[in-house]
């Protein structure tokens, strides 16, 4: 027999504790429907940002968190474009790094995205991440820099040119 003394006034605390246990169990109870779209936790989004992976179709809040994690872990941040230096894409100036766009003379539909590092940069970044105004981020591999300049050749209708030409987009280098 389990017999317990109930002190005057203890019932209220007991009710509270009982509700707490029941609610906590309900949180822990694995939901029957696992087929629903899975959300990523803050930790998993952070891990994806560090590893350069792009999370699949996440909500605006998650994208915003992911973009902030990219910004926090980037070596260079070039958030807003300055006045346009070409007809298509504005140049970007960051601390220790610039990005400018040049049209190819040989192929009119091609552009060079030139990433220039300040002298004295120890290692060159390996990826360029561009996030649009809705915080959808895309990662592009950066070739090894020569004389402090790394360049990507992009078609005029490419995703990179669409993103980087948007003055509201933010660019990060890692």
């Amino acid at each position, binding site marked *: 027999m389990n017999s317990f003394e109930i002190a005057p006034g203890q019932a209220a605390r007991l*009710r509270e*504790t009982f509700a707490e246990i029941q609610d906590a*169990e309900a*949180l822990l109870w694995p939901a029957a429907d696992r087929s629903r779209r899975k959300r990523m936790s*803050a930790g998993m989004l952070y891990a994806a940002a560090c590893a350069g992976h792009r999370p699949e179709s996440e909500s605006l809040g998650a994208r915003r968190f992911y973009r902030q994690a990219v910004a926090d872990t980037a070596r260079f941040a070039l958030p807003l474009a300055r006045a346009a230096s070409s007809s298509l894409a504005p140049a970007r100036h960051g601390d220790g790094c610039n990005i400018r766009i040049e049209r190819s003379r040989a192929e009119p539909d091609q552009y060079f995205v030139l990433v220039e590092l300040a002298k004295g940069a120890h290692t060159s970044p390996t990826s360029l991440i561009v996030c649009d105004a809705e915080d959808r981020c895309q990662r592009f591999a950066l070739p090894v820099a020569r004389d402090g300049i790394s360049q990507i050749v992009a078609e005029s209708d490419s995703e990179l040119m669409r993103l980087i030409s948007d003055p509201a987009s933010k660019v990060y280098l890692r």
Partner: protein
Amino acid sequence: MNAAARSLFIAGAEAGMVEDFRVLSDATAPDGSPRYQERPVLTDLARFLVRAGPNRDMAFYELCHLVNAVDASDRARDRRNAFFLGPERASAARFRQRLDMALAKGGWRRTGFSRTEQGVAIRYADGAFTVSFGRMPFLAALYEFLAGMEDFSFYPELQIIFDEMAQGAGDIKAVQTASNRIASHFRQYRRSHLAPIRQDGKFDLLFGFLAARSPAGRVQVDDAAVLDFWSEKSASGDFRSYRTVFEAFVHFLRALAESARSESMARAASIGVDRENGEVEPDDSAADFDGAEWVSPLKVLDEEPAAAIKFFTKENERKPIEILMQYGPAALRLPLAFLRLEAFGPVQSAITTDLQVGRGADSVRLRASCDEAAPYGKIVAGFGEILEIIRRLQKAAFYALHRNAQNISPGVHALRTPESAFDLARENAADKDLPAPQEIERLMAESAKAFRSISRKGFDEAGLRDESRIEGFRIGAGALVAAAAQIERYLAAAGRIGRGENLEGRFHEDRRVFSQKFCALYEVSTHE
């Protein structure tokens, strides 16, 4: 909570607390294992999130102190996320390592902080605080929950709160202010996600029922109360399922124990930081709301490195003891009610499934007869058989732990049976006086034979050269001891059921009662 109530809970809180919590419980480390241990980390977090009583915001205060220490250990922009959200499994050792790595880059950036053997000690101008490494996995889970809740909408504000706290972080009041700001926001979240679905009515029904059959000023909970309550209240939606009723009683017993403990703690000291006024700081035990809360040994075996060893087969060895291990001490407090759950719980679940998939009245009628219910004697005998298997596994684990030892001194002095030797060896107990060499030899031969007779994953001689495998056996050994003790205690409790009345007689009577009740509940007759 029955399936319907759970569904209601989940439906009511969809995209809210349940979903926010599920994201965390689904999160994995790079090796695919859960990022947070279910017990104690997730259970403690769940209890904290739904807590309405005193000290409900204490963990925010602890978190703020830890954030303050993290800010003082590193200047990197992402220092907080790197510390709290690093992808590996959240463990005390991992947080110790992260802190040490940050400090290796340049030590503490501010004065007043020190890294101790147990954790981080912070000395403020107006007080002091310590956060232990053991507490950090819980605080990391809380940080991650706060960061991700309500689709990350609170995250920017959370960072602002921490940034502003850091500006005045030499002062404990700044920490308190930050903690209060988080608590204030979280209270709104808690209110909007929890209040509409909380069901206080359940408690009132249960407490009223028990008080009416107990002497004044006391509450008595026994096996008969569980069955009587179900018989009386099952017509109402909340308590239709016997399993739900059994769980409600288990929760009630836990609430009684916790309530009694908190009453006595309140008399002993209040929790706070003002030592001069006799208040005490929370430590690791603050996360342990439930005192010595039971953890199923099977859950322990599911975690690496023990998970790499197949101790039990799923269907024949693990499944029969799963519920007994899940309920732990509660099954011992209500042994007959538990046996009823084992025998008739599956029958009721099957009826529910029949109704859901439209199998028809004939199927429900057949099940409601309870002809397919497992007799009590068979269930108890099954536990006895699993106990024998566990003893064999204990011998095998003993061999795994001592095969490479120069001598098997640790704890062997108390050797009377291989199981007792195993217990001591698992604990790596210091040796005082060794038994005779022949005794040791006999034990090792017996253990080796047991080990070699098991042809399952992990039970191979070659694998015993692997440190991780040995650690798996050491952890598994603890779980086997706990599982064996639980079965032994339950067998003893089952032996006392009815005193003199045989279990089969009791089973036949209960089968009649459950069958009648199922027929009434599901509106079928077994005589058609």
